[in-house]
């Protein structure tokens, strides 16, 4: 378990580097960054936040079921967690697609409707794709780990004396949720009231 926590600290610093870059560039170009909020879909972003919170609940219920040797509940909650994770990625995919259609992907014919922010807004969109992209990659890896747990649960590996893998992958899943909890306000809510 402590090994998983150690790994998560390295992950905190991995994402922390991108959050630091975000803080620096936001400080340099506050107006350009705030102007990007009208291109972020708060409804989709908020829905995804809620979806991830639901997936964290089902994940912690899966751990609980494993601790109590309730195999049927464990399998049910693992599947629910995977469904929520998949919903998140599908919604994220729709958001990426609309960014592509609106020419908001940096480096690929990026066109911004406020010419004075053409360059500086591109930095925000670069950070947006880097941060949400790395987050989505973590989600995909998490789904792979959950599939592994599901197979093991079906093989009756887990009982009240052996459930450490469920706990550890649960920790990873909650960590990925926490990253999104910070990404949502910083990327979606910075300036859409203007």
């Amino acid at each position, binding site marked *: *378990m*402590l090994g998983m*926590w*150690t790994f*998560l*600290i390295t992950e*905190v*610093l991995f994402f*922390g*580097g991108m*959050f*630091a870059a975000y*803080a*620096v560039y936001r*400080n*340099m170009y506050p107006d350009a960054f705030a102007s990007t909020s009208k291109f972020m879909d*708060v409804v989709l972003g*908020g829905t995804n*936040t*809620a979806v991830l*919170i*639901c997936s*964290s*609940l089902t*994940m*912690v*219920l899966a751990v*609980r079921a494993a*601790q*109590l040797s309730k195999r049927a509940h464990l399998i049910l909650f693992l599947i629910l967690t995977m469904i929520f994770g998949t919903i998140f990625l599908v919604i994220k995919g729709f958001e990426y697609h609309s960014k592509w259609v609106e020419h908001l992907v940096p480096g690929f014919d990026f066109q911004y409707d406020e010419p004075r922010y053409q360059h500086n807004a591109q930095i925000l969109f670069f950070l947006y794709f880097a941060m949400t992209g790395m987050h989505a990659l973590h989600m995909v890896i998490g789904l792979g780990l959950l599939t592994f747990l599901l197979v093991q649960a079906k093989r009756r590996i887990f009982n009240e*004396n052996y*459930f*450490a893998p469920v*706990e550890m992958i*649960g*920790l990873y899943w*909650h*960590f990925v*949720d*926490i990253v999104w*909890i*910070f990404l*949502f*306000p*910083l990327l979606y*809510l*910075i300036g*859409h*009231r*203007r």
Partner: protein
Amino acid sequence: MSAFHVPIPKVGTLVAVWATLIVLTGLTSYVSYFELGEWNIVVALLIAVTKASLVAWVFMGVRHSTTLTRLFCVAGLAWLMILILLTYSDYSTRNWTYQAQPWSTNKAAGTSR
């Protein structure tokens, strides 16, 4: 394995935390529609930190964890703070020395050749 003696969480507690997280998500979205100047980011980050703490404390089981695990959590946060605070304080203060004062202008005082 250290996990053996961890008390099993109550479903009611977990659902209550889940409901709080959902409410806080709605709250942070709602507040962001008001113009609060500098306070928008402060409120957004306070709510985010509260949510993250709830997830770590209850869902990740820090409330029942060993002192060593908690020490690891705090160490992770401390390093993150060093990373962000030092980087940010460097960049955000670079233009404070707004007027250059080259030493060669001391000619007027006769201290330079």
